[in-house]
């Protein structure tokens, strides 16, 4: 994968997302060791500190766990956690955008809910 350096999304976020994708695709399975910060830095041609930051995010979200002196490992149920998180985050963000747009277009709440119902039926 090539990082999008021009993107306004910070590199460490991109690294975290990439790792999540790898977990979703099951290229890293539960309790399997993931890349170290140096391997990631080499892989993506980025500063090791940035890579470490990406890993830290995932550790904080308990998707990865640390073993002292051994490295980072995929937590059990990581895939489910990621999917859960993505669902929440992406959907929430999309809904927020929809609500904002509706507000600008003076669409009422009821009308909006109606629209959602219609879409669901079509699909």
């Amino acid at each position, binding site marked *: 994968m090539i990082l999008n350096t021009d993107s*306004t999304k910070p590199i460490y976020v991109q690294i975290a997302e990439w790792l999540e994708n790898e977990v979703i695709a099951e290229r890293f399975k539960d309790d399997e060791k993931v890349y170290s910060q140096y391997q990631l830095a080499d892989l993506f041609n980025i500063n090791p500190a940035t890579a470490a930051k990406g890993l830290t995010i995932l550790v904080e979200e308990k998707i990865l766990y640390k073993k002292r002196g051994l490295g980072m490992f995929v937590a059990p149920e990581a895939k489910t956690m990621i999917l859960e998180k993505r669902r929440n985050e992406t959907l929430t963000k999309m809904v927020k955008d929809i609500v904002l747009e509706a507000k600008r277009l003076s669409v009422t709440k009821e009308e909006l809910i109606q629209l959602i119902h219609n879409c669901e039926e079509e699909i």
Partner: protein
Amino acid sequence: MNVIDCQKVSKDFRRTNALEDITFQLTEQKITGLIGRNGAGKTTLLKILAGLTKHRSGEVNVFGKSPYNNLMVSENSILVDDQMTFPDSLTLEEVLQSAPAFYKRWDTEFASRLFQYFKLNPKQQHSKLSKGAKATFNMIFGLSTRCELTMFDEPTNGMDEAVRSDFYRALLKDYIAHPRSILISSHHLAEIEQLLEDILLIHKGRVVLHQSLDEVKEYAVAVQGLIADVERWTVGEEIIHSKRIDDQRLYVVVKNNSKLERARIEGASIQTLAASEVCMYVTSETKGGIDDVFK
């Protein structure tokens, strides 16, 4: 221990101030980008740190010692720039051969492999090299010293695109294998951005920002919208840059803060900026940039 510790360092050149009250610390084993516009004082600062020139006032410490005329600092630091010279009577090969006597951590194997990779002619003289080849050789020299403080001043000047990316890759890989403090100056941040951990932004001889790359990225945001709206949203904010897009709309760069969330809800288009854009806006002379000239 801090690798570099500068306290209120000033330096002037024939009545113009090159550096004014530079204060910053550099902790060990980080790649730091020294960013600034042309003439911001990057080169002067690097030369002071390398002990090549003397500052006028303030205190400079490298490895806890004043670098000017200090043997230990000279031994553990190197400044790679395009003014580096080597005796004309020596071939490039011989220059590389004479280095281990000076630099205890010199990696002969590494140097010769880089040398071969970049297809330099071992029998050539340094002064006869083209600008790009000279920069390449200096870079090889600088990396191979493995100095605890390795400084590059616009290292890629004259290098072609392929060599540039090879250089950055080599720098990073060598840094991963042998972590050390690297200070790399550039006026072109976007190119080296991903290598960096920290950014030291200087402007007109002063330190403007010294933060991690991500903090710099989040330092400012751009707000765009109708003039009245934008002005309302940014009341009380520190405006870094503003530009009229057309008769009705305005583009403003302000310091990032949480109050802007409200503006977003009200329909403001708020964009995050790339680190290089932040640096550019922070160091621009006028609030409106080049457009002011055409008013």
